[in-house]
């Protein structure tokens, strides 16, 4: 602590250094904390926009018959719910967390490329606005599913070029963000902080950033070909002109499968930070954790066609993609076992971040199980495009990615604001979320197995009961999320002061910084002793 006294003394400098004030502080932001905050606030807003769309979906599905929306609007709700949640909520939330945490955790003053950082954030509100505005143009929003499969996607009306432009913008934003993350991690680590001493959150983001750079251009290529097919007379994906609609699916899923790991790998990182902190015990198998993330990332490039077992692939192709997909279970299993081993012979307490991490552990594992089932190609012929798939990916994305984002915010919020939030309220938020998320998604396994296809606004009457249960879960889950912004607002407004190391068992360089945080994070690199204390996993 002693060596930080000067930094703390500098805190009053904030008022007369070059820090911009008012709206300029945000529009021209180059500080990683401000940009991180903007990313997180933006992600939060998009989470509620996408959530509202989910509410429309679950409202219409509450009982059979068409009660509220036209089928086409329903289709655009499912399409845009996915696009907003993936590109608007989860990915920006991870980038926001990266912005806040990476410089603090590696002993850097800021991100390496602050203006690029500003640019990559400010693209996003425009991209989302364009996407949202498609709901108002003739023909309505995109309604062909977030995968934009041709030829159906080519039937989209005026929303089509807007959707593609929005996707391009979001892709540019994530590529720039990833470049920034990689450059920062590679060049700005404090002396002595070797790669294999980095916190696992930083590791997970480093690998995620490479995945993003590898696959976002592939998505951009695919949607550009859609655009030229639609407006410039090419026939990449149009059979009538010698094109191949299935080729689109191959290209899309070559992006799409790594994309789902882009959404979940940082979650692995977060959980690997939170569990050791509240178990008061270093992570078990640190290096195995790093290698597991790396192998999952590698495997994600060779499993894409498991999303398309029903397109009519050759037998050898089906067997290959089945086997490669099953392989993913091994590194994923290693991670789950290591987290469990971290809790073994530990000394746990159950503050809100830990609760979310534990829920992640149980519920993500359930999502992993249904993933393993889906890998079995013959069984997938039955599961494919049913609610079983919907249940599977929501289990990995909601109690998986979203819970770990919530856990991460609850973990680091006291550091960011130097105030502590209301634990009781946060625990209420946790329990409501954890219960309703299961009421919402567990019955969808039954619906899928009983034969209910996904992406339908109306269904045969035997599916009524579980749809009602699922919808009730959805409304409960949606409403309980309103607690989250309130808890944060209350914390910022009137939280009790939090110590620099907000959690007893928290390790990592971020907890070595004084609270409130200095404007520039590590103006001088942390000393070897601080690194040694902070980097013990």
């Amino acid at each position: 602590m002693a060596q930080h006294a000067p930094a703390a003394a500098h805190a009053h400098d904030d008022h007369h250094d070059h820090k911009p004030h008012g709206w300029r502080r945000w529009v021209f932001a180059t500080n990683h904390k401000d940009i991180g905050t903007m990313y997180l606030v933006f992600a939060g807003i998009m989470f509620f926009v996408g959530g509202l769309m989910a509410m429309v979906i679950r409202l219409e599905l509450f009982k059979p018959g068409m009660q509220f929306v036209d089928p086409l609007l329903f289709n655009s709700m499912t399409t845009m719910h996915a696009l907003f949640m993936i590109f608007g909520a989860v990915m920006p939330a991870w980038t926001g967390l990266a912005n806040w945490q990476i410089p603090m955790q590696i002993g850097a003053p800021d991100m390496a490329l602050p203006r690029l950082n500003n640019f990559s954030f400010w693209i996003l509100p425009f991209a989302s606005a364009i996407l949202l505005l498609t709901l108002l143009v003739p023909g309505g929003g995109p309604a062909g599913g977030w995968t934009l499969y041709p030829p159906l996607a080519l039937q989209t009306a005026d929303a089509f070029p807007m959707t593609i432009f929005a996707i391009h913008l979001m892709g540019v934003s994530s590529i720039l963000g990833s470049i920034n993350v990689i450059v920062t991690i590679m060049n700005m680590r404090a002396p002595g902080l070797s790669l294999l001493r980095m916190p696992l959150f930083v590791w997970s983001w480093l690998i995620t950033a490479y995945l993003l750079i590898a696959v976002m251009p592939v998505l951009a290529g695919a949607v550009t070909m859609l655009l030229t097919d639609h407006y410039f007379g090419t026939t990449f994906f149009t059979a009538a002109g010698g094109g191949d609609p299935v080729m689109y699916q191959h290209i899309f899923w070559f992006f799409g499968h790594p994309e789902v790991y882009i959404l979940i790998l940082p979650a692995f990182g977060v959980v690997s930070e939170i569990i050791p902190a509240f178990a008061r015990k270093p992570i078990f198998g640190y290096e195995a954790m790093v290698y597991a993330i790396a192998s999952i990332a590698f495997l994600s490039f060779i499993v894409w066609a498991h999303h398309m077992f029903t397109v009519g692939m050759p037998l050898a192709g089906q067997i290959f993609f089945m086997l490669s997909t099953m392989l993913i279970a091994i590194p994923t299993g290693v991670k789950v076992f290591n987290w469990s081993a971290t809790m073994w012979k530990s000394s746990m307490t159950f503050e809100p971040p830990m609760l979310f991490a534990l829920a992640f552990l149980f519920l993500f594992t359930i999502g992993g199980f249904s993933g393993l089932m889906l890998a079995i190609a013959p069984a997938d012929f039955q599961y494919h495009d049913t609610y079983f798939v919907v249940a599977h990916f929501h289990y990995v994305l909601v109690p998986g990615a979203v819970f770990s984002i919530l856990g991460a915010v609850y973990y680091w919020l006291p550091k960011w604001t130097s105030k502590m939030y209301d634990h009781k309220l946060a625990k209420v938020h946790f329990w409501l979320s954890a219960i309703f998320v299961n009421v919402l998604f567990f019955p969808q396994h039954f619906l899928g197995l009983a034969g209910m296809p996904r992406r339908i606004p109306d269904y045969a009457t035997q599916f009524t009961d579980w749809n009602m249960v699922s919808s009730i879960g959805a409304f409960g889950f949606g409403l309980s999320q309103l607690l989250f912004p309130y808890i944060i607002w209350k914390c910022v407004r009137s939280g009790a002061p939090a110590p620099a190391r907000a959690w007893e068992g928290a390790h990592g360089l971020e907890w070595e910084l004084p609270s409130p945080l200095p404007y520039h994070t590590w103006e001088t690199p942390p000393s070897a002793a601080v690194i040694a204390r902070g980097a013990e996993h």
Partner: protein
Amino acid sequence: MIRKALAPIAALAAVTSLFFSQGAHAESGWHLLNMRQGVTAISREIYSLHMLIFWVCVVIGIVVFSVMIWSIVTFRKSKGAVPDTTMVHNTKVEIIWTAIPVAILVAMAVPAAKTLVQIEDTRNTELTIKVTGFQWGWQYDYLENGVRFFSRLERKADAARQLGSGVDPNTIPNYLLDVDNPLVVPAGTKVRLLITAADVIHAWWVPDFGMKKDAIPGFVNEMWFNVDEDKTGIYRGQCTELCGRDHAFMPIVVDVRSKEDFQTWLKATAEAQKQAAAPQPAATAHAG
């Protein structure tokens, strides 16, 4: 073989299902919680693979969750637990928990690959029907017999499913799962479907037959099924690839008949279609 091994587990599952269906209304039951076994050899094969991998997951889940729950209950600071901070690595344990999943996966992959080989064995089919998906219905074309017709959502359901129709779907039998002209096939026959589409991608799926295949414009996909001789009856399914506004409203109904009944139907239909197609002097006749 798998099925035999699973018999006791299936019994347990049936008991579990009874437990679950308590309280739900009469329609609920095992078939609304789990995959159906179906009426073809392949669908049963798939069902047993599904149950096998399901129970593998259940067993792994019980082990892993028990460890987690045990830890959560036992290793609490409030109970005075002291962390063993030296426990950070154990090569032996790590090798074991990597090797066991590998073994389980190999054990799963072998029967799964065998089933795939059977599914892809399209030799010796006895009847070929071309299936064309379109927005929003199906066309069936008995290639060897010149019989062809369209199959669309049955009218009453089509009226009821309009936004704000005021009709209670529960009053309509087989709501959204009934068509005007079902596909008719013989039981105990290896029926080959050549599946394609006229506009966008659709998918043809009857859960009781165990298979689903995409209907893709410009492609002809091949799929076969062979319904057990004694399992004649009506089987229902739906389009399972998002295909636009009325994706939910293009059901599939297959009427499986005995071989003799099928031949009778085929002859009568071929005759009727020939007559309908023939130029008629007075009125223009259109069936359906």
